[in-house]
């Protein structure tokens, strides 16, 4: 295995590096203080994997982690000629802004976290290395016979990973899967004689029961305007569209590709001025009075309201698990329920039997990309090799299990039992990949912003349904025109 990796490295090195550099790579390993010219220098920013300040677990350090360092150390034995320098990037300023500036100046780290929906906006800029050729080639760190030994891409679960395809190519690596739940305060539910709701009608009843007690129950994360207000909005929409619209937009019921969505808008299949879209608006508005008053502008950290028993329900992601598990002051029992079904009790547009909600999320955790700067610096082969080393199941498990906020998107990595159920959903069914209605992900931010404004204005009674539909239609059409022109599609 070691030999094959070296051979690959040299081959790839010669293909992409100048003769001098390839010759250096052939030189014997330096004994600690080797000549700098022989060593390929990689720069990386590890995002959520970045080691914490201390390894001592405490209330202020609930998830200490630094296993990325151990993996990097192990990598030194495998690739002594690659020096990996990693940096810390200050949080608190926009990471996207940071990335744009660094890419502009050509100073981006060779390896950096990058979400696939941002990569999509950057396709024409050639900022991110296309990884398809590497994905189609073997991962030299995988013993023969195991997934990945023939093609690197085989290591990843195909269903979520396919969502990251753009122009039929892979431009980033998704190591983590994420989804959302409704967390609820079991003690409080029992006090009022309530149980976890399984349909939207029951969900509204539960919320009403709390409102009768003076409690606005439906708490949780609220996204920015161009993102959705709550993820359940998208799940509810999916259930409204499942019978009549989805089979037309996405006939194979596989991933809803950007092309399919744009063409469905262009061909008047998926339009806001339809009974189904209006039904979605109407249904979703029914829960607004159960949300905390400040839902439009709340602090992103909505855990506090759930933990302090101000709100009995919190819609949030898998990453809330460690937060709730490590908080020493949680003095009530909590559990989760999955997006309640939309049934014929609430709407006449649903399938029979009801279609389950799309699991939200999917391939959105631990996303890494290799910047094209790596090729300019002659370290592309090394960067790819390092990422291949990290995708070895043992290595990835070591990094992810220590943090515990995501599920693996790589085969043969053990899954935390708490996550088994959503994990099965995300890897065996089509999840969010099928979701053609997530504006920021399936359209773009430029369209999602005015659409989000129209939705919120409608929810806040500042816009009639007709006016909201008109505004959304305008953004839909503008997006379809923009995307079809850019990609040169014929629908």
């Amino acid at each position, binding site marked *: 295995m070691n030999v094959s990796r070296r051979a690959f490295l040299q081959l790839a090195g010669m293909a992409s590096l100048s003769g001098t550099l390839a010759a250096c790579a052939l030189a014997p390993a330096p004994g600690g203080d080797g000549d700098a010219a022989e060593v390929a220098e990689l720069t990386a920013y590890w995002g959520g994997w970045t080691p914490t300040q201390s390894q001592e677990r405490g209330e202020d350090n609930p998830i200490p982690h630094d296993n990325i360092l151990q993996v990097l150390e192990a990598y030194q034995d495998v690739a002594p000629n690659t020096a990996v320098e990693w940096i810390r990037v200050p949080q608190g300023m926009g990471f*996207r802004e940071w990335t744009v500036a660094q890419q502009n100046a050509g100073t981006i780290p060779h390896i950096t976290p990058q979400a696939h929906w941002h990569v999509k906006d950057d396709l024409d800029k050639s900022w991110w290395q296309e990884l398809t050729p590497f994905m189609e080639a073997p991962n030299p760190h995988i013993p023969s016979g195991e997934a990945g030994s023939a093609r690197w891409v085989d290591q990843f679960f195909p269903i979520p990973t396919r969502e990251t395809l753009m122009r039929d190519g892979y431009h980033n690596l998704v190591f983590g899967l994420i989804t959302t739940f409704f967390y609820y305060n079991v003690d409080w539910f029992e006090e009022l004689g309530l149980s976890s709701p399984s349909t939207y009608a029951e969900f509204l009843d539960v919320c009403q029961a709390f409102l009768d007690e003076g409690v606005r129950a439906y708490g949780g994360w609220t996204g920015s305007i161009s993102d959705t207000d709550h993820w359940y909005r998208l799940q509810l929409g999916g259930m409204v569209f499942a019978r009549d619209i989805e089979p037309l937009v996405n006939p194979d019921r596989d991933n809803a590709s950007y092309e399919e969505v744009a063409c469905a808008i262009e061909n008047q299949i998926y339009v806001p001025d339809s009974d189904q879209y209006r039904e979605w608006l109407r249904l979703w508005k029914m829960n607004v009075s159960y949300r905390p008053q400040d839902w439009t502008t709340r602090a992103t950290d909505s855990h506090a309201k759930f933990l302090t028993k101000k709100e009995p329900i919190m819609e949030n992601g898998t990453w809330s698990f460690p937060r709730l598990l490590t908080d020493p002051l949680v003095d009530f029992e909590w559990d989760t329920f999955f997006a309640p079904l939309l049934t014929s009790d609430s709407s006449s547009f649903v399938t029979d039997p009801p279609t389950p909600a799309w699991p939200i999320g999917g391939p959105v955790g631990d996303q890494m990309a290799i910047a094209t700067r790596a090729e300019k610096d002659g370290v592309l082969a090394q960067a790819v090799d390092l990422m291949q080393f990290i995708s070895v199941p043992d290595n990835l498990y070591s990094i992810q299990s220590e943090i515990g906020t995501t599920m693996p998107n790589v085969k043969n990595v053990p899954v935390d039992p708490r996550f088994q159920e959503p994990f099965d959903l995300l890897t065996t069914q089509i999840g969010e990949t099928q979701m053609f209605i997530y504006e920021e992900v399936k359209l773009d931010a*430029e369209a999602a912003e005015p659409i989000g404004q129209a939705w919120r204005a409608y929810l806040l009674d500042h816009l009639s349904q007709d006016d909201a539909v008109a505004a959304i239609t305008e953004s839909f059409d503008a997006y379809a025109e923009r995307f079809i022109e850019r990609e040169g599609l014929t629908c």
Partner: protein
Amino acid sequence: MTSLHPSRRTALSQRIWQGRMGYLMLAPTMIMLAVFMYYPAFLGLYRSLFDWAPGLDADWVGAGNFVKLFTKDKVFQQSMGNMLQLSLWYVLSTIFVSLFVAILLHRMISYRLKFFFRFLTILPVVIPGIVLLMLWKFIYDATVGPLNMLLIATGLEQWTRAWLADPNTALYAVMLRNFPWVDGVAILILLAGLQVIPSEVIESARIDGANNWRILWSMEFPLITGQIKLLVVLTIMWGVQEFTAVFAMTQGGPINKTMVPGMWMFWNAFSINKMGYASAIGVVLFLLTLVLTLINMKYISTQEF
């Protein structure tokens, strides 16, 4: 005295030569500014004539971005209204509160108290602005925020609301943050201006029977108009461009009720890669500030000794 007030008839070249010392003193500044300020500023503003995203080729669109801004972009038009309201408030609160505090400090007889309070007024500025915004966001919180708690405690429960999330109050909540609007820096600037006035002038007026109000109105106030104008100009410049408060507290919401052009520009530039369009917003803000500044500097007279 010709060197002090060169007559108009003196040849231009001669006047330039006579003023060589002035140019020389400016030289280091101008060199630094040319490299680190004018060059990026020019690049930033010049892009307004293009359809451009960082990393892509720029397409010349001439005035296209500006036309779109003023004819189609409703968010921009709404944001200008919000910004003007905010800026007006920033100017008024900065001037009046700071002037009040500066005069209180200036009139303070006891040297120790003066020293102590001057220190206290400047002390809060050590906290980064972003932390203040975070704290104020909590103060306005609907359920656990101290403001609503206070209202409940004083029996005004019907007044409580989600201040930042209610479309009717959000802009005012952003505006009235940082109560009581004591701006340590503005106070120091005004105080420095007040201290220039020689104490004999004030003393002799007092001996002539002038009271404190009269001294303030007819002697001190006219002499610090320079400082006041300075603060007005600075606050306008800052108010027109400012968006971190909105960004951190409401993200421009709810439904654009707190959107300001600075934030709209930032969003266009970094969220949807429309750097050219963002530059056009920047140019509009630039010209607006320039006009307001010139009006302020040219047409409001300053009294000097």
